[in-house]
């Protein structure tokens, strides 16, 4: 453990529930994102288990068609917008400042606001189940289905809930971009930034430029439903929705996967004891994916009949985007190749990620071929594909990250035995659930059907899938138990348990409020590694004897008051972000029930928002700037 000898110089860690509500500390906000998303993951997982129970046998009777529609829509929507994206945000919040050697993100209060608004929107979406019914038009809410049935508020929850999540994400992304481009430690050039943080930058750009398009589509849907506009009906064209949606939706899939790729790119080098093979390639392929991700949206719309030219163009573009993705896979394999691979839990999950992602990527390429997609479209083959990339890719990557960084968050390891059970059960359950769906899809089982008849040859594989899904469920219960237990009782880890390479391992676990006693001066990619190791004549890494992981901090702080020149302005806590987010969420609820009484609620919400925003923009940024 690192001792904070400079206690009186640096801000102390505040405690108590109020300190969490008013926190602007990026690490705490990251934690809150993570915990919220984990809870949502269990809810959405439960929804999936209901779906699987219903489909376990032909003519299932557990769910009505109506309930089924709500469950699969909410399952998809929640998993994507309330689980995977926010888990990404959790890691980004926690690690961007640590990776670039900063004390916080650029706008700590805006950061808190993003979180609270995300929480508000999450509560809003989930509350729909008891307030008139949950969204039931599929996660991509196609018009005209989504703009009909105005007597129900269900798709209004979709339109407003997703809108609020979008606003929260745009703000968070602007924040991250400003942080990375303007707050890096001295010497931390762009080509020295850890890959995870690079991917976070790409993700932020994708979000900031794609979410507004979605936002317009959502407004149009909302107006069509409530104010009789004709964007997708009458003289309007429902295809416009598909364009606006997928202009966001395809970049979104990279938003979901790139953070996981970044995490894996951090883990594999550490557990192979080698630098990442081809760091610039990994970075540039990530950027390339970002650009190309904007140019392929219409591959989701082949069956809408765009005409041969557009279909051919989008087909080719889609096949091309597999190239940078493939580059990354080779880089990961190249990193492991010849390395001293340690099969610790983070590494196991990372290898799981790479393998499953390859399978999902390959079935993805089969969609890019137009005629083949005509066959697969809207079948279970697609369901299999996107679960391989989102779950096999995204979720495996995030779980790997959780095992990797849990010691940094809490100072303790996650239990290894439970972790192994989690890994093997999850891997088994995952493949049992989703591999059969390829077969079901090719045998013609359509997605989004709430029951199927006997004798279609779909019984067996559906049963397998249901069994598999419960195995996944068990594996995650183990994970949850592990998280809860190890937080207090895990083996102590110390500051640098994995012999890490990046700056977050150079500080204590958990990190102090201000992150770095002294802002590091960076000289290399993997700077922390180079501080610990020199290279001998044969190019092997030799540990420098006088330096041990993490103790750098100790030797530094051991000194004296020499840090006084660096007076730390930590941003002061504020409850205004919560007020503003509450206000906007209230406006959202009002809009859902507008016109009518909803206007009153929206009006009240506006007042609360103004209170929050004015208080926020007029209060001083840091405590010690009181000079009224």
């Amino acid at each position: 453990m690192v001792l904070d000898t400079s206690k009186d110089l640096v801000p102390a860690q505040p405690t108590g529930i109020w300190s969490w509500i008013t926190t602007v500390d990026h690490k705490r906000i990251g934690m809150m994102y993570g915990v919220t998303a984990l809870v949502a993951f269990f809810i959405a997982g439960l929804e999936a288990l209901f779906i699987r129970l219903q489909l376990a046998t032909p003519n299932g009777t557990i769910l009505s068609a109506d309930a089924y529609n709500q469950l699969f829509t909410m399952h998809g929507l929640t998993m994507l917008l309330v689980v995977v994206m926010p888990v990404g945000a959790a890691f980004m919040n926690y690690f961007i400042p640590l990776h670039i050697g900063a004390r916080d993100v650029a706008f700590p209060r805006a950061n808190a606001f993003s979180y609270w608004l995300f929480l508000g929107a999450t509560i809003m979406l989930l509350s729909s189940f008891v307030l008139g019914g949950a969204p039931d038009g599929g996660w991509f809410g196609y018009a005209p289905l989504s703009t009909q049935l105005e007597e129900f508020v269900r798709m209004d929850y979709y339109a407003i809930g997703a809108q609020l999540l979008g606003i929260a994400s745009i703000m968070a992304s602007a924040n991250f971009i400003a942080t990375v481009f303007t707050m890096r430690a001295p010497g931390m050039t762009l080509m020295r930034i850890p890959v995870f943080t690079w991917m976070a930058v790409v993700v932020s750009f994708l979000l900031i430029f794609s979410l507004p398009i979605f936002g317009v589509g959502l407004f149009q849907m909302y107006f069509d439903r409530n104010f009789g506009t004709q964007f997708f009906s009458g003289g309007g064209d429902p295809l416009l929705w598909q364009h606006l949606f997928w202009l966001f939706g395809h970049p979104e899939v990279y938003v979901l996967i790139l953070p996981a790729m970044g995490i894996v790119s951090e883990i594999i080098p550490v557990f192979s004891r080698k630098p990442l093979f081809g760091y610039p390639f990994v970075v540039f392929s990530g950027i390339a994916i970002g650009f190309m991700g904007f140019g392929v949206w219409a591959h989701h719309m082949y069956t809408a009949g765009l005409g041969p030219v557009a279909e051919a163009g989008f087909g080719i573009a889609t096949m091309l985007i597999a190239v940078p993705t493939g580059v990354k896979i080779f880089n990961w394999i190249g990193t492991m190749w010849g390395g001293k691979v340690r099969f610790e839990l983070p590494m196991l999950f990372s290898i799981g990620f790479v393998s499953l992602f390859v399978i999902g990527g390959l079935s993805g390429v089969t969609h890019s071929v137009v005629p083949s997609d005509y066959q697969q479209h809207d079948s279970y083959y697609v369901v299999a594909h996107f679960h391989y990339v989102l779950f096999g890719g995204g979720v495996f990557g995030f779980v790997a990250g959780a095992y990797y960084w849990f010691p940094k968050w809490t100072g303790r390891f996650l239990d290894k035995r439970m972790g192994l059970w989690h890994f093997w059960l999850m891997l088994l359950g995952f493949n049992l659930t989703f591999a059969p769906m390829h077969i079901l899809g090719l045998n013609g089982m359509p997605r989004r059907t709430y029951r199927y008849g006997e004798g279609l040859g779909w019984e067996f594989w559906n049963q397998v899938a249901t069994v598999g899904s419960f195995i996944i469920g068990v594996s995650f219960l183990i994970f949850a138990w592990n998280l809860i237990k190890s937080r207090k009782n895990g083996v102590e880890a110390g500051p640098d348990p994995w012999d890490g390479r990046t700056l977050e391992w150079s500080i204590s676990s958990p990190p102090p409020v201000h992150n770095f006693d002294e802002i590091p001066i960076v000289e290399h990619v993997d700077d922390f590694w180079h501080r610990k190791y020199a290279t001998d004549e044969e190019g092997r890494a030799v540990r420098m004897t006088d330096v041990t992981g993490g103790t750098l901090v100790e030797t530094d702080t051991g000194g004296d008051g020499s840090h006084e020149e660096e007076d730390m302005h930590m941003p002061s806590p504020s409850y205004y972000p919560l007020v503003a987010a509450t206000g906007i969420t209230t406006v959202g609820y009002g809009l859902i029930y507008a016109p009518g009484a909803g206007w009153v609620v929206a009006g009240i919400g506006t007042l609360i928002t103004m209170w929050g925003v004015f208080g926020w923009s007029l209060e001083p940024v840091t405590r010690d700037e009181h000079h009224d």
Partner: protein
Amino acid sequence: MTSQSAPVEVHDHHDIKPIRKAAMWVFLGSECMFFGSMIATFLLYRNETADGPGAEIFDIPFTSASSFILLMSSLTMVLAHNAFENRDPRATRIWLLATAMLGTTFLAGQVFEFTEFVHKGLTLSTSSFGSAFYMLTGFHGAHVAIGVLMLMTMFYLSFSGRLFDDRGLNVELVGLYWHFVDIVWIVIFTVVYLLQV
């Protein structure tokens, strides 16, 4: 750039200005997408008038005048910013107020225009053309209104002498936002009005 531009971007932890501006610019980039989507929607539906009123009801001289007013508010805004940089609270205050007034005049013009159009039978729900027109110009108007609110906040701050304190909002950022709202209207004026008649 000549003498080997330093690879080390040393950044002053107390100077938040460039950080804020970076965020503002990327936010404005994001707003381009927002307005771009609505402009594209309008272009798609420019002829979908469902036999109701179309672009022929536009009053180009009137809109030209209000466009010109908004355009000139950019001048007053930049003069406010200039005074702000010179730490001249009085001039800042005057130009801020002028900008807010011009913005309000523009908004009043828009309200008048909308009322006229509704009387002529063009509403949100008459046709896809109407929906797209009102959505685009309406969201722009909302941006102007928020801008006016921010200008008035700055105006208010200028009296208590807190204008130059380091706060979440300052004249420069408000200015960037305001100019952006203006350039969006430059495009809307051309695409929605001039090109359709």
